[in-house]
C-alpha cells in the first residue's frame, strides 16, 4: 500500500528531515511511527499525501509514485489517504457536523449521502451528542475525535494519525487508541505517529523508529524503545 524507496527530504533551509528511508506498509497493517520530536514523523506523513515532495527517492502509494501524479490526480491520493493532523485543522466557525460534512461537500457529495455518512462517523467516534457544538466548545479529546471522523468520512483506505494522543490525558488517550484500533480492524491501513511509550508497549504492533530522519529500527511486534 505504502512504499518508500531511499527517500530523503531536505527542507530549503538546509534541515535534513529524512535520510535514506526505506519501508513498506501493506494494506490493512497497523504501524507505529515513533521517534523523538523533530525526528521527521510529520515530514514523512506530508510526503505520503504530497503536501511536499521528497528531495530524492520514491514515495509510492497504491502502486503510484506520488511525485509522478498529475496535479489533477492529487485529490484522489488525498481521498485515499485520510490524515488526522497534529493540529487537527478544524474550522472554528463550523460546527462539528459542518466540519465533517465539509470534507464530503468539497469532494462533490451532496444531500442524503452527506447526512448519512456524517452521522455514521459521528456515531463511530461517539460524538453524536456534540454534533451542533463548535470546536472551541469541545475538550482536546473530543476535537481529536472530530478530526478522526473527518478523516474517515470519505472512507479512505489508509488512515494516518499524527500524534493523536499528543496533548491528551491517559484515559482520553486510551479512548482514542481504542477508536483507531477499531477502525484498523474494520480493514483500514493505520499509521500512527506517536511518542507515547506506554501505548506502543501495550499494543505490541509494528514499530518503525525514526531518529534524526533515519529509520533505526523496524520491528513486527515492537516496543517503544529497543
Amino acid at each position, binding site marked *: 500500500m505504502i512504499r518508500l524507496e531511499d527517500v530523503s527530504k531536505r527542507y530549503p533551509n538546509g534541515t535534513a528531515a529524512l535520510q535514506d528511508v526505506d519501508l513498506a506498509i501493506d494494506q490493512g497493517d497497523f504501524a507505529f511511527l515513533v521517534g523523538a520530536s523533530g525526528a521527521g514523523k510529520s515530514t514523512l506523513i506530508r510526503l505520503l*499525501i*504530497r*503536501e*511536499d*515532495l521528497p528531495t530524492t527517492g520514491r514515495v509510492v502509494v497504491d502502486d503510484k509514485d506520488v511525485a509522478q501524479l498529475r*496535479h*489533477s490526480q*492529487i*485529490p*484522489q*491520493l*488525498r*481521498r485515499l489517504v*485520510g*490524515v488526522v*493532523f497534529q493540529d487537527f*485543522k478544524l*474550522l472554528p466557525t463550523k460546527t462539528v457536523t459542518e466540519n465533517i460534512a*465539509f*470534507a464530503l*461537500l*468539497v*469532494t*462533490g*457529495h*451532496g*444531500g442524503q449521502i452527506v447526512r448519512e455518512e456524517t452521522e455514521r462517523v459521528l456515531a463511530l467516534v461517539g460524538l453524536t451528542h456534540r454534533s451542533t457544538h463548535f470546536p472551541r466548545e469541545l475538550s482536546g479529546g473530543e476535537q481529536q475525535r472530530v478530526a478522526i471522523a*473527518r478523516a474517515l468520512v*470519505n472512507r479512505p483506505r489508509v488512515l494516518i494519525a499524527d500524534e493523536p494522543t499528543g496533548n491528551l490525558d491517559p484515559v482520553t488517550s486510551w479512548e482514542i487508541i481504542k477508536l483507531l484500533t477499531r477502525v484498523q480492524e474494520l480493514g483500514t491501513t493505520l499509521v500512527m505517529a506517536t511518542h507515547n511509550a506506554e501505548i506502543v508497549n501495550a499494543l505490541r504492533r509494528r514499530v518503525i523508529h525514526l531518529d534524526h530522519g533515519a529509520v533505526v529500527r523496524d520491528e513486527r511486534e515492537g516496543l517503544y524503545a529497543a
Partner: protein
Amino acid sequence: MRRLGYVLTAAWQGFWRNPVMSVAATLTVSLMLLLFAFFIVTDRGLQAAVGALESKVELVLYLDDAAKPSDILALKARIEKDPAVARVDYVTKQQALDRLRDLAQRKEDFTVADLGTNPLPASLEIKLANAQDTARLAASLKDELGRGVVTDVIDNPTVVEKLLTITRVLSVGGIAVLAMMLFVALFVIVNTIRIAVHARRDEIEIMQLVGATDWFVSWPFILEGMLVGTFGAIVALAILALASQPVTSAMVGFLDILPVSLGANFVLQLALGVLGFALIVGGGGASFSVRSQLAKGARA
C-alpha cells in the same frame, strides 16, 4: 447539480462576508458598464443619424410649417433654373415621417420615437448636377432665410462629415476611457477576490488536504466575481432604464430633425452585451486572482 449547489452557496456567502468590499466592487463595475453602454448607445445613435442623412440629396431646405404653397412652388421653380441644379423634390411633413418610419423598419437598431405630433418639417431636396457647386448654392440659398419660407439650409455632405468626425472621436476617446475603466474594475475585482481568498486560506488549505479538486476550490471565488459582475450589470441597466427617457428626448433634441430612439431589439442586445461583459470581467478577474493565490499556496 449538488456541486453547483455547494459552489453557489459558497459564492453567495463569500459575497456577503465582506459586504463593503463587495458593494464597492459592484459599483465600480456598474460605472464601467454604464460607460460601456453609453458609448455603444451614442455610437449606434450617430450611425443611425448618418444613415438617415446619407442619401444622394446634397442640399435640403427646411420649410416653415406656415409657408404658403404658392411661395414654396415659386421658390422651387426659381431653384430649378440654376444650371448647377439637376432636380428639386418637394417632400411634405407626412412624407418625411413615412420615410423615417420606413428607414427605422429596415434598420433594427432604432425606432421612431412616439412624439404625438410630427416634428419633421416639409422640405425641398436639391440634387446637383455638379457636387462642387454645393457650397456656392448653399450660400446663395441662405439669403432665403427669414423670408417666411425657408427655416434652415442643410448642407448634407458637411453634416454627414461632421457626424462621422464625432463618431470617430467618440470611438477613439470612448475606447481609451473604457480601457481605463476596465483596468480599474479588474483591479478592484482581483483585489476583492484576493482578500476573500486570503480570509479563507485555512478553509482552502483544508479543502485541498481532504482531496477537493481545484475546481471546487476556485469556482466559489470565480462565481463570487461573476456575482459582482451581475449585480454591477443590474445596477447599470437599472440606471440606463431610468435615464433612457430623458436621454432619448435629449438625443431627439440634439439631432433636432431626427426623432429616433433605440429599438427593442437593440435594447435587448445592449442588456445582454452589458451582462455578458460584466460576467467576463467579474469571472475573469476572479479567476486570475484565485489562480495566482492558489499557485502561491501549499500544494506541492
